[in-house]
């Protein structure tokens, strides 16, 4: 295998696949990147067996072939090379020579035979989506995923293609965020998957390379082909992301979304966020809640921790309902407010033990459970 490549393109390609490595102890080759050279491009592949990424970089291929190299060290070396032109030459014993300007490296590789192949997809359920739109949808729910490993079902984002729309849901059992978009979903093609948190993070990172992406899935795995038509640093074709899905039944989220609206207030998103953020500055790990108090045309936010002090914020709002107060974990309020982009949000509350609900004029809902004050 022998090719010439632009240093920055090579570095950019390695950066796309860098995060996905397996544990060195169990399978050393999983910390390597598989480099395959053919025609006028090289492909770079990494996998940790649960998740795999492949991208393609344009290159001047002189001799086709393949080799694997430790990806972290290789990426560091390529970034630091002195000259924009880089030549890579692999010998049959998997030693790879990398030359750039006056720099010469010889790196020990491993043959491609041991590298586990990424499963390719055939005729699973498939949909085309817009990258920009999916990015916004993922961002508006991803913060609500659970990080508690004992609730592994909740360690991901639920994708539900059903009834003429795609719904994304994430919950940690104390809050739930949901967003949906209308699209054509043939009945035979409807289905749902739980995409693991790590895959969601990688997908979100990759979704700015082009206009479209394609998702394929069955009940065990999912794959994304992400177009790279907006990329100007060497990526060609599409980035391929493969992932196992979380197997199991996602909880019935419909039952926790309140059916009735009790008191609805319209809030300036930025202002509310700032007030809650300031009030929460006095919170501590032991007393991590802010109290929201509604009276006629006034919203007050208070927080306190016994050994530090207290904070009081007030906002003028349009409100004529009964006086009520309810306390929440401040992060549960701030996370959706940060993730949204609309200037105005609606916040619905009922009483001190009923959930609060954020809504926007889009199909967005975030349900947050209160903190019961003793």
């Amino acid at each position, binding site marked *: 295998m022998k090719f010439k490549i632009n240093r920055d393109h090579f570095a950019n390609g390695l950066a796309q696949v860098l995060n996905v490595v397996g544990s060195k102890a169990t399978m050393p080759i999983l910390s390597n990147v598989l480099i395959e050279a053919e025609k006028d491009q090289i492909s770079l592949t990494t996998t940790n067996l649960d998740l795999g990424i492949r991208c393609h970089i344009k290159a001047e291929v002189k001799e086709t072939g393949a080799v694997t190299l430790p990806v972290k060290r290789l990426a560091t070396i390529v970034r630091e090379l002195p000259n924009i032109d880089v030549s890579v030459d692999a010998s049959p014993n998997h030693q790879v020579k990398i030359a750039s300007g006056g720099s010469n490296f010889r790196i020990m590789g491993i043959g491609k035979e041991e590298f586990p192949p990424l499963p390719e997809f055939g005729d699973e359920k498939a949909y085309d989506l817009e990258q920009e739109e999916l990015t916004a949808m993922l961002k508006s729910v991803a913060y609500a995923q659970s990080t*508690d490993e004992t609730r592994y079902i909740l360690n991901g984002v639920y994708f539900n293609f059903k009834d003429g729309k795609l719904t994304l849901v994430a919950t940690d059992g104390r809050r739930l965020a949901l967003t949906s978009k209308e699209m054509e979903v043939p009945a035979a093609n409807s289905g749902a998957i739980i995409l693991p948190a790590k895959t969601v993070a990688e997908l979100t990172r990759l979704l700015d390379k082009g206009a479209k992406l394609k998702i394929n899935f069955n009940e065990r795995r999912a794959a994304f082909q992400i177009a790279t038509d907006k990329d100007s640093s060497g990526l060609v074709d599409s980035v391929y992301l493969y992932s196992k899905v979380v197997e199991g039944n996602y909880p019935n989220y419909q039952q926790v979304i309140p059916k009735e609206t009790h008191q609805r207030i319209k809030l300036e998103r930025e202002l509310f966020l700032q007030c809650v953020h300031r009030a929460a500055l006095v919170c501590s790990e032991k*007393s991590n809640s802010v109290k929201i108090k509604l009276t006629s045309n006034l919203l007050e936010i208070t927080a306190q921790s016994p050994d530090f002090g207290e904070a009081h914020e007030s906002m003028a709002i349009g409100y004529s309902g009964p006086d009520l107060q309810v*306390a929440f974990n401040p992060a549960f309020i701030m996370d959706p407010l940060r993730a949204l982009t609309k200037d105005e949000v609606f916040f619905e509350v009922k009483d001190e*033990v009923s*959930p609060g609900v954020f809504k926007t004029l889009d199909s967005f809902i975030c349900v947050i459970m209160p*903190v*019961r004050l*003793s």
Partner: protein
Amino acid sequence: MTVSVPPDPVPPPRRVGHLAARGYAWRGIPFAVRLPTIVHLDADAFFVSCELALKPELRGTKCAVGGRERGIISSASYEARACGVYTPMPTARALKVCPDLIMLPHTSGLYGKVSRRMFDLCEALTPVVQRNSIDEGYLDLGPCGFASSAAIEERVRGLQERISLELQIPVSFGIAANKLVAQIASKLRKPRGFVVVPPGGEEAFLAPLPIGRLPGIGAKTEAALNARGLKLVGDITARNDSELESVFGGGWREIRAIARGEDERPVETERDDAKSYSQQETFADDIGDPGEIERVAKGMIDALLPKIRGDGKRVRTMTVKVRYGDFSQEAHGRSLEAATDLEAPFYPLVAPLLRAAWKQRRPLRLVSVRFSGVEDGPAQLEMFAQTDEKRRRLAGVLDRLNAGRKTAAVVLHGHQLAKKPPVV
């Protein structure tokens, strides 16, 4: 019995400035106004005394309160103590050393009631009362503004008589300038003791006492110290710093402070929150049936959680302890993901914890359940837990129904019902 150590003559006012300037000040208060305001009260043989108040015909007999057969003695009359009965001693052994011992069963609710009335009488004297346990506590008469040591003595004697008169129980008092000395003093002349240690006389008071009278020095430590020539408290204060360090190691300064009768702890009126909740049961005959043990353990969950709810707390960790016939024991615990005030999340832990703790295939003498990881304050509500809210409402109803009932007519959970014998 009463012992009064002669107080130092109250120094004439003109000496006050002189002494204070030389450092004879105590908590910033000039020497002249120092009074023994800390009182330790310790009821004598409390459970037995409560029983004797109801059964005066048993006064002067060798009697004890405790469990029968396989139980232990929880309180013994002074006559029984003279025969070698002590607490906690297995009842069977007590009956061997004192065959004519009259065993009285626990009277449920009695001791708590007497204790409350006793402390109520204390609070009539001063608001600063620290209830250490059911039968023992501290009073601070500092805020009462007594002018002299004699006035304090008179009032505390009045309290002792009032408790004796109204509750028919003997109580011993120790009066001193701090909790440490007051506590040692109250235990010195039991029963009906009344010992006053004047301020400044602490070291002299402690010096002739055996070293084992000091808190923290148990029988083993006492024997070890005796072997090194330290028999009396005064032997500690007589040693120099390096000698003390070689005997007591890094903590020698604290030991010396205790031996000198120095203590700065205030009387705390608010009781510390419970760190754990536990219950145990000793069986009349060893039990080898896992189903039965599981039923008993679940019954303990049902008994403890209402208390936890009543205190407005939640608990996270459950520990099950088993004890075999030979008193060897083993315990195993597990924590829930989040603290709860409901019984249900703990039921599924009973069987696995029992399996983990009860490794030897031998019948059990005792099983206990303990809840720790106590939390209070705001509780984050869960989303997929509507059943929890229903359970909490149900538990609230049960708690109200069962409140005030002791053993009869409480609402039981299904698993608390003993298995019916098979129908023949």
